[in-house]
């Protein structure tokens, strides 16, 4: 249980928060870990906020939820205001500066920033902003190995058109690259 990692994804509905979490969950399961994916559901629909919590562990997962996630990937201001204080001491905070107009308050955190919307717009793939950020995160946080993850794309997007998968991989890799250069 000590090895258990819990990562929170939070932002607007429509920013692809839940699928970011799902992708990570699939990836972790793909490499043989125990996983759980816990969404905040329903009420948060309709332009409200969306968030999900991913738990990854070697052993049995008792609790798929927690007060204090080890890492938080935050895509908008309201979510930062709500969750910053909750992150584990010395945890990780990834923030989308396109929609967050204030610096973090916490001093103990590892912090990574990216103007996700702007970059995605520049890449002409606003819809894939979440994949870009995800790529960056996976590159930086050692949850699942990058190579393995890339190997799982076909599996995770099973049923989707190849074109779609490629677009996603491209966005993902762009994120990886961004992290290498900027984080």
């Amino acid at each position, binding site marked *: 249980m000590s090895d258990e990692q819990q990562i929170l994804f939070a932002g607007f509905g429509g920013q692809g928060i839940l699928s970011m979490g799902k992708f990570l969950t699939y990836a972790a399961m793909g490499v043989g870990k125990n996983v759980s994916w816990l969404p905040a559901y329903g009420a948060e*629909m*309709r*332009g*409200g906020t969306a968030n999900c919590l991913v738990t990854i562990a070697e052993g049995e997962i008792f609790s798929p939820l927690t007060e204090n996630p080890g890492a938080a990937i935050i895509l908008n201001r309201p979510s930062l205001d709500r969750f910053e204080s909750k992150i584990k001491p010395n945890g990780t905070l990834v923030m989308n500066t396109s929609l967050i107009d204030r610096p973090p308050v916490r001093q103990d955190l590892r912090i990574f920033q990216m103007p996700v919307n702007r970059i995605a717009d520049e890449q002409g793939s606003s819809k894939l902003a979440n994949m870009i950020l995800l790529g960056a995160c996976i590159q930086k946080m050692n949850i699942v190995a990058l190579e393995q993850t890339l190997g799982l794309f076909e599996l995770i997007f099973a049923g989707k058109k190849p074109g779609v998968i490629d677009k996603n991989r491209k966005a993902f890799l762009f994120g990886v690259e961004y992290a290498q250069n900027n984080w």
Partner: protein
Amino acid sequence: MRVVAQRPQSLTSARTHYCPGCTHGIIHRLVAECIDELGLREKAIGICPVGCAVLAYDYFNFDMLEAAHGRAPAIATGIKRILPDACVLTYQGDGDLASIGMAEIVHASARSEKITVIFVNNAVYGMTGGQMAPTTLLGQVTTTSPYGRKKEETGFPIRMAELLATNEGSAYISRVAVNTPANVIKAKKSIKKALQTQMNGLGFSMVEVLSTCPTNWGMAPLEALEWLEQNMIPYYPLGEFKVKEA
């Protein structure tokens, strides 16, 4: 300069939770404008459905009650019978009114309850994530008709306006749409007429409003308006189906 368009008094200043381009917002405004123009705000009692308009009690600026799913017409009956001078209106979606609430709406109409029903037909269950409605069109894909609605399994979409028009208790029944400026203007006229029918004690009144659900139709707001025009209006003809004169 004079103001030609602004927020009606019968709406609060609350920002709605509706998706971008959802025409629930337009319909809310039309109802509020009619209430204002008829000077009924202080007599008005609105009943919201369970559906995307469930939060309408935060948006309409008069007494409101939040109903159990489909039961708004029964609740309206309970209120109107005790407060005959009030202006009692229900705002219901197609799942709320045409599915679970079928018995209540048919009987409110049969009893000729002096209430006004705003029936928002968007051919889908919006709030719960896009399931099939009794008004979903044949062939239309929803989360519970994933291969398109088939008549062999689900029969045919119900035309509520036509069905309720068979009741002698119905005093005013119409169908309008809010997909173009012209239709929006017509819709407003019809809603006003329905409210007047109630206040004149003529009987049950309902306006069926064809509306969009960009989110669950999986379309951009403008596409949705186009889809409504191309697909809904042909099956759900616009017009007045029952007009009882004073």
